């Protein structure tokens, strides 16, 4: 990662958005399926209704859909912080050395493992600093009818965006994550855009004796 930072704006030796061999789609998909089979599962419909009750409570409490989006993202962020450790412990996914590698791991392994959803990566930026996670099925939004007043302002599953942001922050990537397309708004599929803002480097704490 230090080498990437030092590369500057000259022509890179290889395109940054390509992935090494052990990040092949098939291998990661298999990893995701195995991880989800090993796990104890909770009825997806119960989860959908629980999440829906939570969103409904937020809408009643905050009334402004923009504020509800912010709160959902914050709740997701708290979840993501803890989910990162859980994911690394359970999934056996290969470590990501560059930001663009997190895209395949999140889409193929994490989404499959936690939500049971097969997602894929799309629209990777040229310099590997942003990508989209695309998925058709969203188990959290299964029984939802959005009222017209909220339809174009509320991102119902914004918790997922927060979770991705929190999880990536635990591995030192500061990102901004947002929904671009949502099936509940009438789009054909769901799309979450993840963009890298800053990469942090872990430092040893300063030695206080010196």
């Amino acid at each position: 990662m230090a080498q990437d930072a030092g590369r500057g704006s000259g022509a890179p030796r290889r395109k940054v958005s390509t992935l090494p061999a052990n990040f092949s789609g098939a291998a990661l998909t298999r990893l995701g399926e195995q991880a989800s089979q090993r796990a104890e599962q909770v009825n997806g419909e119960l989860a959908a209704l629980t999440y829906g009750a939570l969103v409904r409570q937020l809408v009643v409490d905050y009334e402004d859909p923009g504020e509800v989006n912010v709160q959902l993202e914050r709740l997701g962020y708290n979840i993501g912080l803890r989910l990162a450790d859980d994911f690394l412990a359970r999934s056996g996914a290969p470590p990501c050395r560059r930001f663009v590698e997190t895209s395949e791991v999140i889409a193929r392994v994490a989404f499959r493992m936690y939500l049971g959803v097969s997602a894929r990566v799309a629209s990777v930026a040229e310099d590997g600093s942003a990508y989209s996670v695309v998925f058709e099925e969203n188990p959290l939004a299964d029984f939802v009818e959005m009222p017209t007043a909220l339809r174009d302002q509320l991102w119902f599953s914004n918790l997922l965006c927060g979770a991705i942001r929190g999880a990536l922050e635990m591995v030192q990537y500061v990102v901004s994550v947002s929904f671009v397309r949502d099936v509940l708004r009438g789009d054909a599929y769901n799309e979450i855009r993840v963009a890298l803002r800053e990469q942090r480097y872990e430092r040893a704490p300063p030695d206080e004796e010196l």
Partner: protein
Amino acid sequence: MDSTLSATTEGTPLLLPPGRSSSADAAMVDAGRSSAAGTALLPPYKLAALQRRPPDLHLSAFALLFAECIAYAQNRVLSVAELEYKLQQLGVDVGRRLLALVCLRERQVRRETRLLPVLRFITSTVWRYLFRKVADSLERVKDKNNEYMIVENDPLFTKYISVPSDLGDLNCNAFLAGMVMGMLCSSGFACVVQAHHVPRTDGAAYPPRTVLSIQFDPAVVQREVQMS
């Protein structure tokens, strides 16, 4: 605010486009109106959601989601009793909608009208749907004809939740209690359900046993007596 979550309501017939198998919705489709009309009242992704079950969620993901629900409620209340009440209300929200969904999934076409059968419905059918096992026991409180208890030895929701001592005897299964309350009230059995911690019989501290105590309205008990 009207952010409605709707499973299919009992009164609405689903007109499925021709060629769709309606085995899962046999209870809901009005047999008299066949799919000759060919129009779907619901958009395709919703029909799909009703016809097949969504994928299961990983326990960690659900546990963290539940923990966030509790944390959110905790930030908005001033006492433990209020927190339990908020969790219970969240559960009632879920339970009211869960009833129709369980009936759809478990092919339960008849609504129970008597007290013991509806309690058995909850402890076996609903529990099996939620937790893939039946409740550990259903008991009636001695000397009281309107109080029943559902005992759960290892409740799934609170598997990873530990309550700090300054929150007293908060039981986060208030959410589960709310769900049961929502289902019973929607079935026509007005009641109040609360969750209590109960010490285990073998003396071990973990996993903690929970008892859902159900107190039925006197009117319900009276109706039950009249019907028998």
